[in-house]
Structure formats: structure tokens, C-alpha cells
């Protein structure tokens, strides 16, 4: 599906498409870019985009943004995602960056924004704790003021790619007496500080994406506090808003759908009754993706006219993740018996993997994508948001 583009926007699309085709690194074309790349490999594309000046389309131009229109930004997202490129690290560029340029002071902007743009600093997100998942406001990690420092003690968990991280942005409790949201602050912590320990959590797909991060007597300079003490919840909510709208991932779903069709054609005989069942299931999910894409285009058209979708954007997180989960489920079923095999991690050339190579990642994607409806505010939380903020219930 295409936006009806003006001449300038069509030219822009062609430019973007050509740039991706010519510059996306071959080393990054691996079976599963999210789990198979080293830190250096996964930064290759980031660095190319930085050099081109295209690393942060969301940011205002003065901080290193591109100055693109909403339509152009959408075109960029669409092209990058259709081409199957690994997006730049969201925790850095989409999440903490905007918090720093919106709520940080001048010193913080100068110090942190360049490293985010260049990729020299890798950020991870210290939100979840063993006792606070969807109920984020219940964080217990404590930061106690001690002269020019905070002393931080606590335990963050499900921290994505903390094993690569140089910095972590944390929600910490600075006022234990205040109620839930009121006593929380937003703190930036150098991962090299003594007292910070990272321990891998292996997920059901066998990969190492997430971690426990233990914070024991970690001394953090007061200068690393974003905005005001005890106002962290405001900044956290702002960040989550940015996260939600970028979760429809239609481009990725479209690519996986295309592959699913090829697999079904190759694996299921067309006189097998299951073939018709696959046809119907695929058609349904294809229509779901089409409807969500049409909704996304409608939102882009609205935004170009200055209408903010507001909390209704939660529907993109809900439907986008449901659609992708469904596709990985169908793909896993389509490869039949080889769905028993699970690729080992870390991936290596000399580990035996049976079956046709289009099936190698079917099991792990099916397993791994269960996370989508849980993270970033579970889909149930997103439904609560719409119920309250859109429907007024």
C-alpha cells in the first residue's frame, strides 16, 4: 500500500530506497539480526546513517534531526522496514535521546546527545524490576542523596542488551514516603560504575537478549539526574508514548508474510486440506496487516494536518504485535516436523541444523515473539489506556 505522494516526496522515496539498497551492510544480513550480530556488527548501519545525517529523524533539527516532514519520516520508516534493515537501537535514539533533549539541562545535552547519535554510547533501559512489570510505578530501586552523589541500590530486570550497554537510564525511588508515581526520579547511570553487575537471562528461544542488572551501592553524580527530583514519572510517560507509536512494524510483518507464503507453497501439497486452511489463515492475517497499514496512513494524514492521535496510538502496539505473533505461529506450523528443531545460540556455522534454510529461524521467532504482547506496556495495559483515555471508561 502506498501513500499518494507529491512529486518531491516520490523523489525522496526513491533517494531513500536507493541509499538503503547501496549502503546496508552485507555483514548484517544474517538469519536473525536481533540475536546473531556482535555489538560491532549491529552498529555498522547506525554509523552509516549517522555519517549521512539520517540517524534521528524524530529529533528536532537543532539536536541532530533530519528536518523531514511527517510524511517523509513515514516514508523513511516504511522503506527501512520493507528492506529488512535493523533499526538503530531504540533505547538510545527513540527513547532516552528525546527525554534528554526535552527535559535535560544544557550540560547533559552536550554530554550525551553526540554519543547517542554516533553510536559510541549504547543505552539500555532500567525500568522493569522483579516486583514491577506492567505496574511500573511500583519501582523499589532506591536512590539516596549523599553530597554530590546518589547512592543507588536495587535490581533491574528484563534489561534488553544490557550486556552491550555503556549507559543505563533508570527509574529510581527518591522519595520513599511519597505515593507510587510521585517519588520517582529519572537517573542516568554509567554501566562501568563499581557496583553495577549484569547477569544474562536466557529466554525460551535460547537467545541472550535480556539481563538482570544489579545495582549495589552505586555512586551516581547528581548531575546525572534528568529534570527535577521526584518528577521522573512525567519523563517516563513521555518516553513510553514515543515507544508505542513505533510498534506497528507493518514492514516487518509484510516481509515475514511473504516468506510464509513461500514456505507454505514449498511445504504443503495443494491437495492437502491443510493447504486451504493455511490459505484462509494467511488471508486473514494479511487483511489484518492491510487494515492496520491503512490506519497508519490515515494517522499520518491526520498528523500532517496537525491532529495528534494521542492515546489511540496504543492500537498500533496491540494490533501490530498480535499480527506479528500470528505470522510467526503460522510460519512455525508451516515447516511441519522441522518445527521441532531449535537453533543453538550463539549461532555458529558448524552447529548442525536440519531442514530447509528458510525454516531455521521459524521456531525461535515463534518463541521469541511471545514477548511482544508483554513488553512496552503489555497489550492488556494498552487496552486499559484506550478504555480510560479514549473511551472515557
Amino acid at each position, binding site marked *: 500500500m502506498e501513500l499518494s505522494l507529491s512529486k518531491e516526496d516520490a523523489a525522496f522515496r526513491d533517494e531513500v530506497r536507493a541509499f538503503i539498497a547501496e549502503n546496508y551492510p552485507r555483514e548484517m544480513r544474517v538469519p536473525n539480526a536481533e540475536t546473531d550480530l556482535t555489538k560491532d556488527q549491529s552498529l555498522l548501519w547506525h554509523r552509516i546513517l549517522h555519517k549521512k545525517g539520517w540517524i534521528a529523524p524524530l529529533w528536532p533539527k537543532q539536536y541532530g534531526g533530519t528536518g523531514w516532514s511527517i510524511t517523509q519520516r513515514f516514508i523513511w520508516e516504511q522503506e527501512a522496514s520493507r528492506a529488512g534493515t535493523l533499526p538503530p537501537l531504540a533505547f538510545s535514539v527513540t527513547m532516552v535521546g528525546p527525554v534528554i533533549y526535552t527535559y535535560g539541562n544544557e550540560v547533559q545535552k552536550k554530554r550525551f546527545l553526540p554519543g547517542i547519535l554516533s553510536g559510541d554510547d549504547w543505552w539500555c533501559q532500567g525500568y522493569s524490576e522483579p516486583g514491577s512489570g506492567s505496574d511500573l510505578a511500583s519501582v523499589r530501586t532506591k536512590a539516596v542523596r549523599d553530597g554530590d552523589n546518589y547512592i543507588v541500590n536495587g535490581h533491574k530486570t528484563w534489561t534488553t542488551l544490557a550486556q552491550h550497554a555503556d549507559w543505563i537510564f533508570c527509574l529510581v525511588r527518591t522519595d520513599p514516603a511519597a505515593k507510587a508515581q510521585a517519588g520517582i526520579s529519572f537517573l542516568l547511570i554509567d554501566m562501568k560504575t563499581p557496583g553495577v553487575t549484569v547477569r544474562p537471562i536466557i529466554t525460551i528461544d535460547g537467545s541472550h537478549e535480556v539481563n538482570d542488572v544489579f545495582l549495589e551501592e552505586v555512586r551516581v553524580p547528581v548531575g546525572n539526574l534528568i529534570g527535577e527530583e521526584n518528577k521522573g514519572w512525567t519523563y517516563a510517560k513521555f518516553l513510553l508514548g514515543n515507544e508505542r507509536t513505533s510498534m506497528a512494524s507493518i514492514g516487518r510483518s509484510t516481509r515475514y508474510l511473504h516468506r510464509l507464503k513461500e514456505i507454505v507453497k514449498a511445504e504443503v501439497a495443494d491437495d492437502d486440506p491443510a493447504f486451504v486452511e493455511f490459505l484462509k489463515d494467511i488471508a486473514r492475517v494479511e487483511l489484518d496487516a492491510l487494515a492496520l497499514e491503512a490506519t497508519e496512513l490515515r494517522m499520518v494524514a491526520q498528523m500532517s494536518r496537525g491532529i495528534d492521535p494521542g492515546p489511540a496510538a496504543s492500537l498500533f502496539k*496491540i494490533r501490530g504485535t498480535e499480527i506479528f505473533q500470528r505470522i510467526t505461529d503460522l510460519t512455525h506450523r508451516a515447516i511441519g516436523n522441522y518445527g521441532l528443531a531449535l537453533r543453538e545460540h550463539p549461532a555458529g556455522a558448524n552447529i548442525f541444523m536440519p531442514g530447509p534454510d528458510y525454516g531455521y529461524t521459524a521456531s525461535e521467532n515463534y518463541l521469541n515473539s511471545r514477548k511482544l504482547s508483554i513488553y512496552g506496556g503489555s497489550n492488556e495495559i494498552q487496552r486499559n489506556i484506550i478504555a480510560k483515555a479514549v473511551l472515557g471508561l
Partner: protein
Amino acid sequence: MDIQLTEEQELLRNSVQRLLRDRYDFESRRKVVATEDGWSRKHWDAFAEMGLLAAPFPEEFGGLGDAPLANMIVMLEFGRSLVVEPFFETVVLAGGLINEAGSRAQREELLPEIAEGKVIWALAWTEQKSRYDLNNVTTSARRSGDEYVLKGAKSAVTAAPWADKLIVSARTAGGHRDRDGVSLFIVDRKSANLNLRGFKTIDGRRAAEIGFDDVRVPASQMLGDEGNGAAMLETCRDRAIGALCAEAVGAMTELNSATLGYTKTRKQFGVALGTFQVLQHRMVDMFIALEEAVSLTQHLNLTLAAKGANSSKLASGAKSKIGDAARCVGEQAIQLHGGMGMSDELNVGHYFKRIAAINIQFGDPAFHLMRFARLN
């Protein structure tokens, strides 16, 4: 509405909304539906007077052009008010076919008659065994001098008891499921040897079983090229789906807002129903279903207006997805209204029944899902 409407389109929407607000409230509709005829000539005249019956026609016939968009604007509002008068059959189906396939003379004669509200039309393509297959035609048309002689029967033809004229598909060549060999004829409803038995439909309208026992039709009353009827009907179906999807969106809009309003005020166990999370999440799913249906309907009608490639596949996809979504919304609206949802007095059940009818007209969601899956 999120696509940029032109000034004329915006005007059309506003005037339809105003007209329906002024004279098409649910109680007035109920009275009209309960009459012997089941529709209102006065409403029809009002539609004609404001130019509504010409809206999708080309400018030379008093319309706005861009038929799919004009149809969408009108049908969405008609869906919200459950309008029973045969705009869909007369203007969208017959008017669309005449405009697309008619000769210059036919267009100049027939389109103004429709625009002025003088002639009601119905499209007779379904047969007892055809289900949703446009090619499956056993009614035959045999050439005899300057005439064709029609023999056979058509089934469940909506608006036929009200119609002055019919467009009838009949076979002039080929086997009974061949795509080629179907032709379209303009037939006077009062023709000799045409037997019509009317019946009431679930959505408060009228339809008929029609028998053709050697009905003689002048050869000049053929519409479009001989043998090409199935292809014409296919294009007609795409447009029809664009209109029916918009009507479904209108009905879903009203169902969602009625359900939301009801659950906010209705108390059980001392609290409003809307405070229960299980109901909140269901209404969120109804909200999302509507948003997606709106998007898909706009996308389909824009594609049809631009005569985009794949528009027929897209039409089937939209019919299937929106049909399922509307049924879901309708069922949940009744469920969340509890016992009241079952009552004939409340409008909720009537929206639900219109949706059930939409899901049959021109093919159900299952039929169109397979058509979408097979077309590439």
C-alpha cells in the same frame, strides 16, 4: 472522515446528515417500515430534491463524479440512520451499471430519471442455486426477431417489490457456470409473464422471488455488450462492496457509541457496567475494529475511484474483514446491552440485523476471504 474531502463532497455529507437528522429518527423509520409498502415515497422525493440520487453520477448528469467516494459518503450516513429506501439498488447498482455499460442513449434517458426520483430499480442476478457466484446463471435469453425471450427465475432480489425496472442477468450463450455468455437486460417490472412474489427481509426491507416465463424484451433493452454481463457485474460488485462497507461502518459507529453510552450509565452491583475491565477490553476491541474498518473502507473507495490495480481483490478483502468485524461488533453490542439488546424497541438489534443482511449481499465474509486468498 480523514481523507481530504473536496468542498462539494463535504457539502454533500453535511446535507445528508442534516436531512437525516431532521426527518429520519428511529421512530419515524419504524413507522415507515411498518407500512404496507415498507418505504417512503416522500423521503425518496426529498433525496431527489437535494440531488442525492445523482451524487455519484458524472457532472453532466448532475453528480460529483468520483462515484465510489460519493457512494461512500452517502452510504455511511445511511448506515447510521438505517435508511431503507433503495438508494443502494437504484443509484449504486443500477445507476452505476447504466453509467458504466449503457449506450449514450440509455444513459441520457435513464440517469436523469433516476436523479429526479422517478424510477426505482433493482438488480436481479442471484438465483436459487447461484449462491454468490456471478457466473452461475441458468436464466436464459433466447433471441427471437427483434426481441429476447427470458426464461428462468431470480431469487432474493432486494427492493424488487418497489422497483419499476429491473436489470436481469441471463444467459445468451455458454454453460451454466461459464463466465462468458451472460448478458444484462433492462426489464420492465410490469412485463407480461413476469411473476413476482415479495417478502420481508430481516433488516426491515422488501425482496422478491421473480419468475420469467417467456418474458419478451426488446433487443434494444440489452445493457452493454452481449455475453459480457459477468464482467460488468464484477465491476458493479466491487463498487457495491465499497458502498456496503461504508454502510457497515455507519452501523458500527452507532453501535459502538450506543454501547459505550449504555455501559457508562447502566448500573449493576452498585456500579456502572463500564467499570468492569472485561467489558472495557471488549469495547476497546470494538473501537479498534471500527477504526480498522474506517481505514479499509476509505482505502478501498479511494482505490476504486483511482481505478487502481488489484481493486477487485481489495474489495473482496474488505468485504470479508469488515463483515467479520461488523458481525463481532453487532454481537457484542447486543451482549453488552443485556436483555435490552434483545428488544425490538431498541435500535441496537436493528443495526445488528442490517449488518447480518450486508454480510449476505454480494457474498459473505467466507466467500470473499477465499476469493481474496485465491486472487493474485
